[in-house]
């Protein structure tokens, strides 16, 4: 303010604008890890590690080419060398008379002897992944099978063929397959091999169909059957934990969605706000330049915010949902365990009854 003593209307920022440093310049030193030399790359690395869910070894100096390799070369926790690499990409739409669906290219590179060829590349659709997962659960019920992305989508609400949706799904399928490939037991599963190699999966599928229906029936029996006497403490604790965990994840998902919504509305207002400064600049003289720059700044902020919101939808939310699915499968495993315990206890009961009958019969004789 030009008026003498009135300094109260200016903001608390008393520095001149030249003195104010760019927000990101000071922060880089905080963000870089202690070991790597290049701050920018270490930043990207950390981002990658969060997205993939795989740990990134930051102690080794990163070269730019290795960034790409890291996506495929997962560092192994057990120190084994990896001899099986898989990837899912290249979604394509298929239109037939009966239906329209998307297929994905599944590429395999391996040195394992179980595989006839070192390389495979074929197309699979979601159904095929679903089949694979069910097979894995069946054949290895005590192992935790990684989750698949949601099977059913409400046709009215989500566009199954939109780029966004297809890409999200592809990423999830890719993650699923990689997790199976890395699993020390599951990766050697016969069905997995078939999935990766068979030209005609459908004929193979038909063989295993009967078993699948039987399995799903028995799972349904869990709730209706024999009541457990008591659950061993560790499993009880696990179940409690899973319940709370699932709940919290759900809450976080809802909060994140709400933030996305609020940010989009904020974005809309910003898009109205920026242009007003340009229209003001149009009829000013001295003030034209500063007003125009404010307008440009607001516009860039709006663009950056849009990117941020998109990233949140694409990268953050799917991970949360994945874990919710993971928890679902864990709960299923626990249910199966409960069921096995129930059957076991039922059998014990039956033995006691038979023994008593036998003794009773012996007495009668």
């Amino acid at each position, binding site marked *: *303010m*030009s*008026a*003498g*003593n*009135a300094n*109260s*209307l*200016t*903001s*608390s*920022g008393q*520095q*001149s*604008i030249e003195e*104010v440093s760019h*927000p*990101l310049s000071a*922060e880089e030193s*905080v*963000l870089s890890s202690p070991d790597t030399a290049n701050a920018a790359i270490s930043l990207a690395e*950390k981002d990658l590690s969060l997205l993939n869910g795989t740990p990134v070894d930051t102690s080794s100096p990163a070269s730019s080419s290795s960034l790409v390799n890291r996506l495929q070369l997962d560092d192994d926790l057990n120190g084994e060398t990896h001899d099986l690499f898989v990837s899912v990409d290249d979604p394509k739409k298929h239109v037939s008379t009966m239906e329209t669906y998307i297929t994905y290219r599944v590429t395999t590179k391996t040195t394992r002897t179980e595989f006839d060829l070192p390389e495979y590349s074929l197309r699979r659709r979601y159904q095929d992944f679903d089949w694979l997962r069910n097979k894995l659960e069946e054949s290895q019920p005590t192992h935790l099978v990684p989750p698949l992305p949601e099977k059913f989508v409400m046709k009215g609400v989500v566009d199954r063929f939109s780029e966004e949706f297809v890409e999200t799904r592809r990423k999830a399928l890719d993650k699923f397959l990689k997790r199976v490939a890395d699993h020390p037991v599951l990766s050697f599963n016969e069905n997995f091999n078939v999935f990766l190699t068979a030209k005609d999966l459908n004929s193979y599928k038909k063989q295993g169909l009967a078993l699948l229906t039987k399995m799903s029936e028995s799972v349904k029996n869990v709730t209706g059957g024999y009541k457990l006497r008591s659950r061993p403490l560790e499993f009880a604790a696990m179940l409690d*934990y899973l319940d*709370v*965990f699932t709940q*919290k994840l759900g*809450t*976080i998902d809802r*909060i994140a969605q*709400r*933030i996305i919504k*609020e*940010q989009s*509305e*904020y974005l*809309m*207002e*910003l898009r*109205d*706000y920026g242009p*007003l*400064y340009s*229209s*003001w600049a149009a*009829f000013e*003289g*001295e*003030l034209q330049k*500063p*007003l125009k720059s*404010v307008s440009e*700044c607001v516009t860039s902020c709006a663009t950056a915010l849009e990117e941020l919101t998109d990233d949140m939808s694409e990268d953050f939310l799917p991970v949360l949902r994945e874990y919710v699915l993971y928890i679902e499968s864990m709960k299923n495993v626990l249910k199966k365990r409960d069921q096995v315990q129930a059957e076991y206890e039922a059998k014990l009961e039956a033995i006691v009854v038979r023994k008593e009958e036998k003794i009773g019969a012996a007495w009668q004789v």
Partner: protein
Amino acid sequence: MQSWCSGSSLAEFLQFQPNPQSLLYDYLQIKGAALHVQPIPANAAYSASTDVQCMAEGSCLLRKMEISVAEAEKRTGKNAVNMQETYTVYLIETSVTEGHNPVPDSLWRRYSEFELLRNYLLVTYPFIVIPPLPEKRAEFVWHKLSADNMDPDFVERRRIGLENFLLRVASHPVLSSDKIFFLFLTENGWKEAVFETGFLAKSDSRLKALNATFRVKNPDKRFSELKHYSDELQSVTSQLLRVRARVADRLYGVYKVHGNYGRVFSEWSAIEKEMGDGLQSAGHHMDAYAASVDDILEEEEHYADQLKEYLFYAEAVKAVCRKHELLQYELETASQDLASKKQQQEELAAGTVRTFSFKGMTSKLFGQETPEQREAKLKVLEEQIKEGEVTVTEKTLECEEFVKNAWKDIERFKEQKDHDLREALMSYAVMQISMCKKGIQVWTNAKECFSKM
């Protein structure tokens, strides 16, 4: 009433006098000004030969005196219709800085008194862009801000706005030497003085002004352009203020939702072992983030207030333009009257009636007038024409003086506006940067907590 500049002509000038006009006369006499004798109409107080001196003298009020609106208090009392009402009063503190002993003084004033002062200034100095008061009622509020006049934040911002108003008047080359202004700052009984100036009678009616705006033929082009500019400025600033309020609203929403993260992380950390600490601290950062928006938006209100000031300033500029149109219109009317009277004179002298008139009709019907009648009429017309010429000369002078003085103040205003708005934009930018920095800090901290989990 203290006499702090004892012996100086300024003290004499500022001592309470019943007749403001003779006061000005005295003042100019004391200063040895060349022009005097006739009572000077108020708007020509700022005359050519005393230009420089007025400037220097005028701004000396602020040099000699510190002014501030220090506090605000709630009062209850009976109003004009004998009903209880609650209102706020503001403490005006003044302190004379000249001399060895700074003499502080203070008194309490209501918003309505400030309004009265401003109306007085508007009428008395129509060629000056009078600084605006802070808004009467809270407008352009985003939802969290209360629109209640009793709300402490609103009262605080108004206090600052009132102080700003006083300082602007006190630093104005012309306005600062106004006696009523001085009384407003220092004398409890100022109201009698201001009503005695008779300013209410001098104010132009709205209708008159509107009439002039429509019917004026040759307004000064600069004023037409200025009026157009003011309209645009008003329009864009009010739009800006409205949208900014919406933006603030949304920003508030975004920040506050993040606070929910804090709660859920804290609940989640209760069931985790290794991740517990990390989650808990990250949650605290989220809470801090959500809480930080209140301060951020409070600061932004200052920026909004600065824009509002210029929104209202635009109206003050338009008032000056309207006055010009009025004066110009009066001049045009007077000139027209004179011209038609002269024509009548011609016609009467020549004996012909060229224009269709009632007189012509009646003379045809009832016979021509006698030479004596004609002589009488001509005499009357001559008188009227003489008066008319004087009027036109006066009006022309008035108009020219007004245009000159007004344009001077407008140039001053333009510079002030450019300077102030540039500063406002810069501080707004600094605010935004600080907000972003705080955000980055919070997220960096949260990220660290997450990476340690």
